[in-house]
C-alpha cells in the first residue's frame, strides 16, 4: 500500500463512496418524478443525511481498532477524510433541518433548540464535530500538540450523542434495529479503546509508520 498509484486509487474510491449518497439525494431532489425521495422529500433528506453522518462517524471510529487488529497501518490515512465526510453529512442534516424542514416556521427554531432535548443532543454532537473539523488541519495538530489527541477523542462523545439523538426522535419507545446496530457498534468500539488503554497503559497506538500526511 506504500506505492503511490494504489494510494491514489484507494483515496479516489473513498471519495466516490462517500460522495455517492449525497449525489443520489441531489439527483432525487431534481427529479421528483423518480420518487426517489418519496412523498415527503424534506423528511427523507433530513433522515438520509443524518443516517449517513452516523454511519461515517461509526466508520471513522472503527479505523483505529481495525488498524490494530490487522496491522494495516495505511488505514490511518482514511481516518481524517472519513471524519470530515461524517461532519459534512451532519452539516447537511443541520442545514436541511434549519432551511427546509423548518421552512416558514423559522421563528420556532430558537425555542425548539431550548425546549427539545433530542434536538439539543443532536446540536451538541454537531458542535463537537464542527470543532473537530476545524482543528483537523496539520497546523492545529502542531499548535495543540499532545492535547490534539485528547480533544479529538471527543469524537466518541459525538457518536454517543448522535446515537441518542437518532433513537430519541422515534414516536414510541420502540427503537429500530438499525439504531440498535449503531449503538452496539459505537459501544463495542468504545469498550475496545478503553480495554486497549488499560492493557497498554497509554491508550496510544504504537506507531509502526510515521504520522499520516496531513493531506485529506
Amino acid at each position, binding site marked *: 500500500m506504500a506505492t503511490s498509484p494504489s494510494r491514489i486509487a484507494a483515496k479516489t474510491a473513498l471519495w466516490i463512496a462517500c460522495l455517492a449518497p449525497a449525489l443520489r439525494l441531489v439527483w432525487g431532489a431534481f427529479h421528483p418524478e423518480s420518487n426517489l425521495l418519496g412523498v*415527503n422529500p424534506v423528511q427523507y433528506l433530513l433522515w438520509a443525511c443524518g443516517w449517513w453522518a452516523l454511519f461515517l462517524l461509526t466508520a471513522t471510529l472503527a479505523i483505529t481498532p481495525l488498524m490494530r487488529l490487522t496491522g494495516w497501518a495505511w488505514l490511518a490515512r482514511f481516518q481524517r477524510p472519513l471524519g470530515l465526510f461524517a461532519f459534512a453529512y451532519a452539516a447537511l442534516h443541520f442545514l436541511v433541518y434549519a432551511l427546509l424542514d423548518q421552512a416558514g416556521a423559522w421563528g420556532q427554531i430558537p425555542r425548539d433548540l431550548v425546549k427539545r432535548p433530542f434536538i439539543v443532543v443532536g446540536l451538541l454532537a454537531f458542535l463537537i464535530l464542527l470543532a473537530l473539523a476545524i482543528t483537523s488541519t496539520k497546523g492545529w495538530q502542531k499548535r495543540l500538540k499532545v492535547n490534539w489527541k485528547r480533544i479529538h477523542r471527543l469524537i466518541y462523545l459525538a457518536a454517543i450523542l448522535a446515537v441518542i439523538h437518532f433513537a430519541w426522535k422515534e414516536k*414510541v419507545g420502540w427503537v429500530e434495529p438499525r439504531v440498535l446496530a449503531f449503538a452496539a457498534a459505537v459501544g463495542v468500539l468504545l469498550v475496545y479503546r478503553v480495554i486497549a488503554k488499560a492493557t497498554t497503559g497509554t491508550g496510544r497506538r504504537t506507531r509502526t509508520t510515521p504520522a499520516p500526511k496531513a493531506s485529506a
Partner: protein
Amino acid sequence: MLIRKPSDILPSEITPEATYRDRRTFLAAAGGLLAAAALPLKAKGAQGSGANLGPLQKSPLSTSETPNTYAQVTQYNNFYEFGTGKDDPAREAWRLKPRPWEVKVTGLCAKPRTFGIEELLKLAPLEERIYRMRCVEGWSMVIPWVGFPIKALLDKVQPLGSARFVAFFSADRPDQMPGVRLPVLDWPYLEGLRLDEANHPLAILAVGLYGQILPNQNGAPIRLVAPWKYGFKGGKSIVEIRLVKDQPWTSWAKANPNEYGFYANVNPNHDHPRWSQKTERRIGELLRRPTQMFNGYGDQVAHLYRGMDLDTYF
C-alpha cells in the same frame, strides 16, 4: 425403501380453499370494475385500481381545499401493523385480505350483532368527505374519503344509557400483518372515542378513498376517521366496535401516556414533549403552515370540550 403408489391427482392440481376464495373475490372485484366502467367519471385525480363505490353524495362538511394526490395518500402511511416506516404499508399491505370481512358490534347496546362488510357498505348512503388529516408527527394531507357517519351504525345496535365510550379494535393477524409480530405497540391496535364524539356528524367510518374501495394500506376495508383529532386516532381495518362504560386504554396512550392522550385533539397550543405542534407541513408543500385548533373544525366540535382543560385532557 418406501414405494408409494402415485395418487391420481397431483397435489398441485388441488385448488386450495384460499385460492378459490380469492377467485371469487377477484370475480366480485371484476364485476365491480365493470360496473365502475359503466359510470361516467371516476373522481378527479384518482389513479387507483380499486372497485368504484358508485354514486356518492357530496357533503357540506367537506373542505374546498385541493386534495392530495392518490399516490401521496397511498404511499405515505402510518400503519404499524405493516411496519414502522412510512413506505412499509404500501409495500406490505397486499398481504391483508380485506374480503370477506366482518365487524362485531358488542358491549353496552340493546342489539349487539355482527355486520358483514357488504352490509356495512349499504348501511347508509355513502358520502364523499374531503377532510384535512393532521398527523401527530407534524405533517398533514387533504384526503377525499368515502364513508358514512358512525352514528348510522350505532343507531342500529342502540347503545344503552350506561355506554359512555366506543372502543375500536383493529385486526391483529400475524400471518397477514408482519408488523404485529414485533412488540412495537400492544396489539391489537385499540382506539376510542367518547360516545358523543362518535355520534358527531364529522366522525365517520371510511370505506373508500377517491371514490374507490379503500386500499389496504389506508385501512381496508373499514376505518375510523375523526378529522379534528390527530391521525393516529383513526383505527384501521376495524374488526370490533365495543360500547363501554370506562375510557378505553388506547394503544398510543398506553405506549407513552405523557406524549399521547386519549383525546388527541389537534391543538397547536399543546406541544408534543419532543416537538412543536404549532406548525405542520402539508404534503406537497415546502413552507410549513400554522396548525389550526381542532384542525380547523373548531366551529363544529369545540362545544364537545367546553369546560375541559385541554392541557390536561390532551
